[in-house]
């Protein structure tokens, strides 16, 4: 995400790369494609996916994870059946990424409290901007007093949105998984249902909001 002219810019993911072994690639392409991203959150929901432990290995027999913060694939490379999105929307880059996911995924799932309603980061919606500015860069107890306060604002960093938004206020979301984070068994149940063509459902016994 950049607001500067990009005529002189080359992205690393557009440079010539070592090709993947064609057989291994073909095996992955036969699987159900899943794209994942963490927006404004703590990465906890993403790690909760790892918490399905050995069941993750079984799941990976059926699905391929392409774009993800666990991989170096920087854009969704093929039409994907499932988009797994953690975190809310807090800056213009989040908006662009979320739209990229909506365009390239059949089913988009909001995973966790931040994605569903903004979560803890959305507590900043209660705070007036001037107070926020003053707290971090003017009244910060560690600000070097010999320098005037500097405020990050640069073409290479995205602008922050005035509020933190839940995903469904920005794009259409198909399913919601609550929890901070959702337990691994909930994530597993949802993915397993979708992969096997069963209807989405979270039994009350495994659902939790904390």
């Amino acid at each position, binding site marked *: 995400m950049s607001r500067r002219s990009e005529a002189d810019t080359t992205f690393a993911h557009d*440079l010539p*790369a070592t090709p993947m*072994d064609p057989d291994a690639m073909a095996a*992955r392409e036969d699987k159900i494609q899943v794209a994942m991203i963490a927006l404004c959150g703590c*990465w906890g929901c993403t790690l909760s996916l*790892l918490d399905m432990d050995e069941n993750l290995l079984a799941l990976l027999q059926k699905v391929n994870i392409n774009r993800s913060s666990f991989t*170096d*694939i920087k854009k969704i490379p093929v039409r994907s059946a499932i988009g797994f999105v953690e975190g809310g929307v807090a800056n213009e880059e989040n908006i662009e990424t979320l739209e990229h996911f909506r365009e390239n995924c059949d089913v988009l799932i909001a995973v966790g409290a931040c994605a569903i309603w903004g979560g803890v980061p959305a507590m900043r919606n209660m705070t007036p901007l001037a107070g926020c500015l003053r707290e971090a860069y003017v009244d910060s107890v560690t600000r070097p007093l010999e320098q005037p306060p500097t405020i990050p604002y640069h073409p290479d960093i995205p602008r*922050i949105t005035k509020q933190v938004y839940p995903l469904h206020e920005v794009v259409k979301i198909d399913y919601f998984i609550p929890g901070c*984070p959702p337990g691994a068994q909930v994530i597993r149940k949802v993915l397993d249902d979708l992969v096997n063509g069963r209807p989405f459902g979270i039994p009350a016994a495994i659902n939790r909001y904390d």
Partner: protein
Amino acid sequence: MTRRLVIDPVTRIEGHGKVTIQLDEANRVAGARLHVVEFRGFEKFIQGHPYWEAPVLLQRVCGICFVSHHLAGAKALDDIVGVGHASGQQITPTAEKIRRFGHYAQQLQSHVAAYFFLTAPEMLFGVDAAPEKRNVLGLVEADPEFVRRVVALRKWGQEAIVSVLGKRMHGISSVPGGVNDHLGPEARDRLLHGADGLIGLETVIAYAQEALELFYAYHDKERALIDGFAEVPALNMCLVDEGGNVDYYHGRLRIVDKNKNVVDEFDYHDYLDKFSEATEDWSYMKFPYLKALGREAGSVRVGPLARANVTRSYEDATPLAKAALERFHDYTGGKANDMTLHTNWARAIEILHSAEQLRNLLADPDLQGSNLVRSPSKSDWTGEGVGVVEAPRGTLLHHYGADRDGKVTFANLIVATTHNNTVINRTVKAVADAFLSERELITEGMMNAVEFGIRAYDPCLSCATHAIGQMPLVVSVFDADGTLVDERLRG
């Protein structure tokens, strides 16, 4: 013509970052930066909340080291209510050991996740392997049994966290002045001996050694690359015990230089006298430094490499880790180790150290004690607290103030990755100089070398952008004293 190379986003790290590298007309690297492109905001919006909510809300800074945030917050709350190291009125042995147990368990699982899932692909496949291969899927395809062992090791660490914090993430154990539960004998025995689907402690220690063996094998194969890769200078800082060796839960902050001379050592309650934090307009992450030395000389490195540099020796009760650390120290002959990729070596040693420390705690009957909380009288209330722990990524500080009604009036956090901001940027520049300068052809694999350097720090950019601060949609005007005199929305 000048040219800009951009990595956006940096992947296989926690949080959001971007790298820009500027090349001049002769294709030399003129500048290289890690931009932290996100920011969230905790320090302002925590104000007005009940003080006891602070650790529970602020642990949401990070899903991978929430125990560290929970404990740094808990130690600050101890101070506030008048218990803990600052007051001289210590929490009970059971409470301190339960906290340490959760902390070491988190260090084990966090380091295992970072080391195997985020770094091992380069160790096994090379820095310039196919981008689709350099990840956990590639590891599964190459060696599913290896991944099965990694999953089992991380699972054990997570289950150890569950045994004291109640769930794998964002659980609760500490309360002001102590903890809310002990570790029962049944939970202890399950972790010691394993259970259906859970390995036992001896297997944990065996698998932990595999991390170290992986580094040794990689080092034997790629010694020139690893030793010559981004050797960047920085001071080293961590919490130390009375013997001057790392203590992940408590101690004084010690800073050593290249010759391992102690540059400074102080009580972390005095951090405001020691540290300033500079800000650049191109990153949301601040740049802390020691005021006495200035920004260039006074930036510190924290985390596994810094801890291995500060520490002279581990305790005798963790013999495998102790021997591994001796081998690490011998490699640089008494000097501090500034080789970025050796951070992965230090992290592997700490996986083993955590496993041995957990074994020792599991043998300690204090974990089954019932004296959990010290409840001070109202007159002990101080209304201010600072808590510091060694999080997996390095020194983490929480500082809160609260009024007589118990409402938070103030909060400040300095997290490990923020301390590492300057040294990470030095690393990005060093790798760019070595891999990209004056090249005819630049490949994706060369750019991955820059990311490999960043990943050595296991940076947590979510942690590092907790500060609610700048709203870049606003133009702000400050007078010479830094007072906000005007602000308006940008068009």
